[in-house]
């Protein structure tokens, strides 16, 4: 296995560059207490990801030019944790999968760093907020790159928790507001619940491999050891079937981690609240990169999931249901970022749908295109928010295309890309996902496909609704904001938008389906899938051109219907939605309040847990039973005895005890030292 990889010390530089940026900022802020001049802050924090991107490009070409038989670059830095049978190296792996992810992360990351210069410009001018923001952002990038480049599960977990930390810090960036701080904590805790599953998965792998000859967490070594554990089963309670394949159990445990990180049902609740953070953070962390870590992990472990059909089916179904469920919640939201947040949850569901169906490269394809168009949409919404002096409610927008023509056009490209307008990036990647569901060997795959198509329609509806309510129709902008003036944002904001728009349009060509390509005389036109092939196995089936076209036409029709409905409701007959709302007030309230899931969790888990801990455990057992009855009770008994029987030893328990001890010790010493 190992000789199929070449060594390259470039990889550590990719991680170190943003890390150095973060450390410089951190030390200056935390210990020296001197904020660097803005120019220097910008230089350090934007150069770090830009250089990391360049190094990634160099590594990418190195990888491409490797001699046949070698499919990866590795960089072993040192032994991180080594004890007993367990050895985890701090080492990095750059294979086609991590190469694609790394390019996305550093590329989009650099753009968002540049965008943040403009976005954060008016914020916290005097208390180091500007530098603190970039410190966290650089740290995030370093952690994300660790996650992507990690050569074993433990380094991946290091990055995994690291991005969680940065997400926590950045959601609560404006910590003076209680709500922001609450949302940050919620994100961290919900992610920890997922990480609990991830850790158990890691332990299960160790446990299985320790029996099978050698505990290891190294991806390629686990893959090599798979034959030894594929046949193993574990006993589970009878209502779960009595016996499971070990791979299924491992796969499910790891997936719990992915459910947390990538905001799937039932742990998606943190992501909409994560919008409390500054908009560039929502774009980078909560849309383009961190939240896709779960999909990346599933693809990284695809050799295991390929042997775990049960786990794969669960992934596919979780993804599909989440996609639909989140899309319905997006319909009734009025906060521009909340709509995008639910849309992200929904799109992540698509990615899991693909991964669960065994179409790992389709999942990664959608990760990539989604990174571009969702970052574009978030940054576009940020431009609107900035222009409206931090107003996020679409009820107070409308008609903005007159004031913000560029933002309007760029945002429109993002909308078209996400709803799958033919030819744009989202069209190709979403079709790949739906095709995968259609042809998969997962139980109920037709239903999965149908859910996917339905969701495509809903997506088109709510995205167009958002766009129309923001940029079209009558202006609902409050007078005081109009009074301050509504202007296009600075160039540092617009240029990243333009670059992202370019990729939102053309990135789909990287995954141009083979059947189309054959028609056009371009063999193997799905270059992304073929590039990923050494790592991610392709589904074995061959797809006819007619099937491919037919499915695409269906999905596109569905999207067109959704978009048309939105046009009808929000542009042609804008008085209708209010009437519907009045008619269906109960349903509307249910959807608007996100099905009361947060309230449900609060009532079922949070409050009982706090209540029991306080009343039963702390007051009941600790203070009441142990201290009150056992300890103080026996103390009283002893005191009673002492005063009753041993009157001569009065003067308190401890004093008597001390005197006895000292006298006794002296006596023993005297006796011992007598000769």
């Amino acid at each position, binding site marked *: 296995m190992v000789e199929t990889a070449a060594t390259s010390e470039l990889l550590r530089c990719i991680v170190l560059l943003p890390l150095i940026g973060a450390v410089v900022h951190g030390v200056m802020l*935390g210990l020296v207490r001197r904020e660097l001049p803005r120019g220097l802050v910008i230089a350090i924090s934007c150069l770090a990801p830009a250089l990391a991107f360049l190094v990634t490009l160099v590594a990418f070409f190195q990888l491409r030019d490797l001699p046949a038989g070698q499919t990866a670059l590795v960089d072993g830095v040192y032994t991180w944790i080594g004890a007993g049978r367990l050895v985890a190296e701090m080492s990095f792996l750059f294979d086609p999968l991590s190469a694609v992810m790394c390019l996305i992360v550093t590329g989009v990351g650099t753009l968002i760093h540049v965008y943040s210069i403009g976005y954060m410009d008016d914020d916290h001018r005097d208390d180091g907020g500007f530098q603190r923001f970039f410190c966290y952002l650089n740290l995030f990038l370093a952690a994300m790159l660790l996650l992507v480049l990690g050569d074993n599960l433990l380094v991946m*977990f290091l990055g995994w928790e690291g991005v969680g930390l940065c997400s926590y810090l950045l959601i609560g960036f404006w910590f003076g*507001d209680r709500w922001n701080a609450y949302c940050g904590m919620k994100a961290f805790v919900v992610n920890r619940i997922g990480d609990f599953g991830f850790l158990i998965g890691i332990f299960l792998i160790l446990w299985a491999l320790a029996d099978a000859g050698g505990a290891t967490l190294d991806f390629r070594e686990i893959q090599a050891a798979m034959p030894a554990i594929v046949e193993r089963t574990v006993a589970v309670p009878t209502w779960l079937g009595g016996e499971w394949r070990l791979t299924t159990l491992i796969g499910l445990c790891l997936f719990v981690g992915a459910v947390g990180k990538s905001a799937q049902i039932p742990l998606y609740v943190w992501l909409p609240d994560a919008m409390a953070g500054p908009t560039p953070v929502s774009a980078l962390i909560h849309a383009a990169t961190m939240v896709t870590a779960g999909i990346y992990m599933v693809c990284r472990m695809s050799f295991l999931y390929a042997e775990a059909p049960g786990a794969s089916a669960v992934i596919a179904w979780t993804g599909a249901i989440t996609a639909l469920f989140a899309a319905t919640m997006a319909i009734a939201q009025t906060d521009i970022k909340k709509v995008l947040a639910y849309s992200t949850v929904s799109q992540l569901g698509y990615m899991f749908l693909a991964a669960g169906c065994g179409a790992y490269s389709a999942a990664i394809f959608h990760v990539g295109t989604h990174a571009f168009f969702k970052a574009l949409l978030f940054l576009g919404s940020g431009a609107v928010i900035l222009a409206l002096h931090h107003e996020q409610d679409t009820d107070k927008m409308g008609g903005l295309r007159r004031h913000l023509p560029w933002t309007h056009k760029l945002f429109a490209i993002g909308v078209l890309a996400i709803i799958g307008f033919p030819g744009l990036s989202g069209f190709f990647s979403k079709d790949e996902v739906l095709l995968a569901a259609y042809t998969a060997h997962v139980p109920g795959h037709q239903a999965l496909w149908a859910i996917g198509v339905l969701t495509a329609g809903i997506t088109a509806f709510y995205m167009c609704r958002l766009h129309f309510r923001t940029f079209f129709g009558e202006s609902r902008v409050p007078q005081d904001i109009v009074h301050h003036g509504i202007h296009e944002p600075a160039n540092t904001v617009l240029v990243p938008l333009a670059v992202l728009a370019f990729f939102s349009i053309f990135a789909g060509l990287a995954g141009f389906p083979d059947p189309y390509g054959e028609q056009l005389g371009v063999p193997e036109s799905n270059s992304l899938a073929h590039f990923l092939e050494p790592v991610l196995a392709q589904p074995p089936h061959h797809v006819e051109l007619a099937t491919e076209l037919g499915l695409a036409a269906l999905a596109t029709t569905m999207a067109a219907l959704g978009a048309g409905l939105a046009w009808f409701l929000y542009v042609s007959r804008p008085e209708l939605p209010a009437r519907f709302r009045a008619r269906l007030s109960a349903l509307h309230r249910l959807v608007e309040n996100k099905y009361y899931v947060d309230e449900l969790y609060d009532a079922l888990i949070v409050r009982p847990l*706090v209540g*029991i801990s306080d009343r039963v*455990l702390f007051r009941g057992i600790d203070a009441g039973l142990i201290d009150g009855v056992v300890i103080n009770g026996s103390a009283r008994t002893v005191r009673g005895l002492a005063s009753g029987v041993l009157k001569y030893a009065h003067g308190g328990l*401890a004093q008597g005890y001390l005197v006895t001890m000292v006298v006794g010790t002296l006596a023993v010493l005297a006796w011992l030292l007598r000769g």
Partner: protein
Amino acid sequence: MDLLTLITFLPLATGLVLVALSRLLPARTWRWVGLAGTLLTFLLSLQLWAGFDPAQGGYQFLHHVPWIPSYGIHWFVGIDGMSLLLVVLTTFLMPLALLGSWTDIEKSPRSFVFFNLFLETGMLGAFVSLNLFQFYVFWEVMLIPMYFIIGIWGGPRRIYAAMKFFLFTMAGSLLMLIAMLVLYFLHAEQFAGALNFDLIAAPGASTAGLLDTLVPIAENAAVPWWKTQAWLFFAFALAFGVKVPIVPLHTWLPDAHVEAPTAGSVVLAAVLLKMGTYGFVRFALPLFPVAAETYAPVIFTLAVIGILYGSLVAMVQKDIKKLVAYSSVAHLGFVMIGIFALNEEGLQGSILQMVNHGLSTGALFLLVGMIYGRRHTRDIADFGGIAKPMPVFAALFGIVVMSSIGLPGLNGFVGEFLILAGAFLVSPWIAVAATFGVVLSAVYLLWMYRRVFFGPCDNPENMGLLDLGLREKAVVVALLVPIVWIGVYPDPFLTRLEASVGDLLHRMEKTASAARSEAQPSEVHQAGAARSEAQGAEDLAAIRYGRSPR
């Protein structure tokens, strides 16, 4: 002079010199001299670190001086990797604890310095002892300065807390004293009447140590119950379990922590609690391996209860210090699980986690002390939004909280991961339950952090809070260095543990199989069960004496 002996007594000697020179020296001088003494001790202990040979399994820096030879009581010191780490932890934390309460102590500051120095000698002595009697002396001696530190410089309920601390520990250790004597005479029985408290053979001598004693297991009907591994293990476990503390023996801890002055809390959490876990590793495991294995499930269960219970109770505390105190109950539960996993991963993780807990919880108590010194309250509800007036404090506190939560990249994760992995290999369900504690630790610590540091800073008393001064920053940053170091590159620590842990496990295996094979010919004795007990004991002794000392 012998290095270990020097390190052990240097703090006390410093204190005695101060006492002897004059009580009239200003308190300032006392503090400075005390600090110098602890720093010098730390520097000397670094020499141990440098001179320690990680490849060697047994004890190093041995020093053996007959003290009361006719009773087998000797001054016998030596360290292996496990005690090395704890010795260095102690010497490292002591100067920081003194520095951390530099300005807090107004009442008799001289005695405060003296008792801290006295305490350090007590703790170091316990860690380096290779003679059980000597260990017991230090184990008890350590209580005296701690009793006074809590009782004199503590909070409003200090007398109650000090008394509770003293009585809990005392009650536990009395039983251990009896068990020690049983063991002592058992050893004499087996080795031709040789009275010896030494754990291992003295350097250059051919005598056997206590670790060579074969403690019978209960299968043999001719052995009275109080001589069996199970009962002796129980007696030791009770003494150590109070110190750890294992639930439900823990209720002294929140009181002691909350009432103790900052330096007291730091030392109590960072070092004194480790006496319990260290006792298990050093004595209970190698002396009673069969019982340790048999009762591991019991300990596992108690430890898991400790983790979940400690976390949940910590969650609902209103006092920051009490919250940190209960978090110790949870964290030490992890350590216990790792120890009784009885494999290399778990044990190495546990000992590393003892150090980690010392660093992060020590740092937490120091930080809580700093805010208490400013606001004279530790009630979470009195704070809110203090990240605004105290950004540096907030940042440092945040890093320490993350270390305590077990964020990868900081020290806590390495220990916890090894512990849980080791436990999973022997008892998956226990490990799963314990892993859930990792979720809870994030809940209670982040919840507290949010309520104290975030939100609007609307209490007028908090608005003018001064951020950390140079001394305070230095203390916390000094603690952050090993916190990050162990998180990023724990290898220097783990390699120092590797051989010692391997040696311990090997020894346990050997002793356990010897004890088991000893129990085999039990039919012989069952036949003679009707005979008088004395006769039976004599027979047994005859069998035992046949064993040649190693």
